[in-house]
């Protein structure tokens, strides 16, 4: 086993390079090159209809214009804070939910057929298109929607609850509904690889259910939790469609800002914004990988 592993990472072996080559090239041309271009364009100048090659910091300066004031936050900082807030909330909820669902699937469902079936059930949110899915929240959560009609009918409230739709609540709800699956899958995967005898050993040693969960299952699911977190955080940071539709277009998101700028041909500013967003997301991921050494865990 040791020898095999060493030969695979031998730096000078030709087969290894050939194997890695195609994917490396795809990455180079469709990821690295465009990314370098984005960084380059973020320093360009522009007018109404064309990009002017230059090296100017003015796009970055415009983004952070007026951001030195503490009492009255500028648009950029406010937008990032709002996006980060959703990121945090959604991460927390999907983590708890995803962990619970994965735990149920991994430890309480014995037959692998049932597991597969329940997994398919988890993918139901992805069966319809994004737009249809989000538009169908309106008849459920709206002022004249099912929930409000139900609450009024049951005499629990006397006028419709407004914050169910087009609010922070509805944004978090829609994001959780969509992205919990990205948490379930990696956590389930790492749970399935936990040696069951460890759980028996814990019980034999007198640990309670919670103690086993906290001291055995959670630490051994760390890599899954981390991968799931990276998925959820990166997706939510870049999401603007869900936030736009569920927030009634009244809640800003970084992605929306970039989209508005590209549609008005302000590519350099959009590029600068994208670079900042990328830097921020990379920092978050870097911090997360500090917490868990993902390569060793895998």
């Amino acid at each position, binding site marked *: 086993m040791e020898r095999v592993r060493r030969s695979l990472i031998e730096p000078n072996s030709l087969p290894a390079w050939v194997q890695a080559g195609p994917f490396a090239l795809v990455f180079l041309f469709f990821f690295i090159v465009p990314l370098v271009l984005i960084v380059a364009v973020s320093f360009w100048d522009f007018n*109404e*209809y*064309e990009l002017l090659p230059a090296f100017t910091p003015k796009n970055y300066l*415009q983004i952070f214009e007026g951001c030195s004031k503490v009492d009255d936050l500028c*648009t950029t900082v*406010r*937008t990032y804070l*709002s996006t980060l807030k959703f990121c945090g909330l959604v991460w927390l909820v999907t983590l708890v939910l995803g962990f619970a669902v994965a735990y149920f699937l991994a430890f309480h469902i014995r037959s692998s057929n049932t597991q597969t079936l329940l997994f398919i059930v988890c993918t139901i949110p992805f069966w319809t298109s994004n737009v249809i899915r989000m*538009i169908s929240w*309106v*008849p459920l959560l*709206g*002022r*004249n*929607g099912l929930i409000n009609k139900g609450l009024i009918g049951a005499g629990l409230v006397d006028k419709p609850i*407004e914050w169910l*739709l*087009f609010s922070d609540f509805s944004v978090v709800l829609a994001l959780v509904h969509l992205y919990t699956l990205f948490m379930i899958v990696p956590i389930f995967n790492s749970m399935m690889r936990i040696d069951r005898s460890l759980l028996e050993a814990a019980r034999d040693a007198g640990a309670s259910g919670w103690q086993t969960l906290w001291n055995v299952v959670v630490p051994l699911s760390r890599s899954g939790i981390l991968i799931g977190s990276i998925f959820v955080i990166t997706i939510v940071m870049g999401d603007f469609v869900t936030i*736009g*539709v569920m927030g*009634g*277009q*009244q*809640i*800003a998101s970084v992605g*929306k*800002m970039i989209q*508005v*700028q*590209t*549609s*008005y*041909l*302000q590519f350099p500013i959009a590029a600068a914004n994208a670079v900042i967003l990328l830097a921020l997301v990379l920092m978050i991921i870097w911090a997360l990988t500090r917490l868990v050494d993902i390569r060793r865990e895998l």
Partner: protein
Amino acid sequence: MTEPIRPAETAAPKSENRRTLIKCVTAAGVVTGFPYVHAQEKVVLRYLGTAVNQDKAIGDKFKADTGIEIQYIPVTTDDVTKRAVTAPNSFDLIDTEYFSLKKIIPTGNLMGIDTKRIKNADKITSLFTKGEVNGKKVGDQGTAPKKVMFLEGGKSKAFAKSPTQYMTLIPTTYNADTLGIRPDLIKRPIDSWKELLNPEFKGKASILNIPSIGIMDAAMVVEAMGIYKYPDKGNMTKKEIDLTIKTLIDAKKAGQFRSLWKDFNESVNLMASGEVVIQSMWSPAVTKVRSQGIACTYQPLKEGYRAWAAGFGLPSTLAGKKQDAAYEFINWFLDGWAGAYLNRQGYYSAVLETAQAKMEPYEWAYWMEGKPAEKDIKAPDGSVLEKAGKVRDGGSYNDRMGGIACWNAVMDENNYMVQKWNEFVAA
């Protein structure tokens, strides 16, 4: 174009099959009455525009009439401009709004359309060429079509001040937009743009989230509220943009807006579900709400309308057979059938007389003259839009188009405006 039958091949016995095939093709061409070239090489025109204007029936009818196929490329208003600027070879015909010409023409990506090749060019309504309806000048704040209608030459990048032989766009559809309301939920008359920010409709109003159009609606509201009178709403100074956006932000913070909308279907949904009772709206959206059996009025307001206009442009690289086909399509479009089709949807067509010839007199009276409908008014698909006796919102063509206060616009301070609009969304 037509491949000549080479004698060497026809003489050779081996090519017997090929010869019969060619004979058949030639015969087919003669029988159907189309020139041989159509059977041989099909011309396909790639038509870039917004989905609202790309009607399947129009493409089908054109193909039936001429054999030329139209391939629709539907994208959003902003993306039409973006593609015209960044990818001018990805279409053969563009359907775009006049206000985006300020961005497209300086790139040199569109050619001047030679009016000598457009049969009905001199019949295009005076609204476009002179800015007049029925001899009366209408509002020209913003990017009024007459300001960007003509080029100095076929390859010019500069707008001409007076009419020339070369047009930038040949108008397709245009309309005068106003607020849409739910009369059954508001239960009182609405007659001014200022009602959009009236606290009475707190949490039940909406404005569209397309900055260059939304800002114009906002400007109409600011003027109606008596806060400020703009010298030119369509070309605000930084200070005026600040003031307009501040008014919007104050309203937003007070909870005036239930939602903003960007997609046509979103506005339909907001109105039909009753989440919103007053909002910026487009004419076909009002029709769609009504066709669901829900009361919705496209309310004329005393301050006037915000107008828009779209038209066909040709990319400057277009040449040869494709160019001929594009001119043929434009000529066909102005010839009446398409105009009548659009008029029945509540839009207006560029050449009114040819469209009138293809409409029933009672239809013309309802849609254009503002008279009560003699019979049930039907949509092009046959569904009943309006019962007999009803009058069109806003009345006649002259009343509606004559009531234009401003046009959709691209301002000199456009970048600043977009930046401030983002601030409004983030507030």
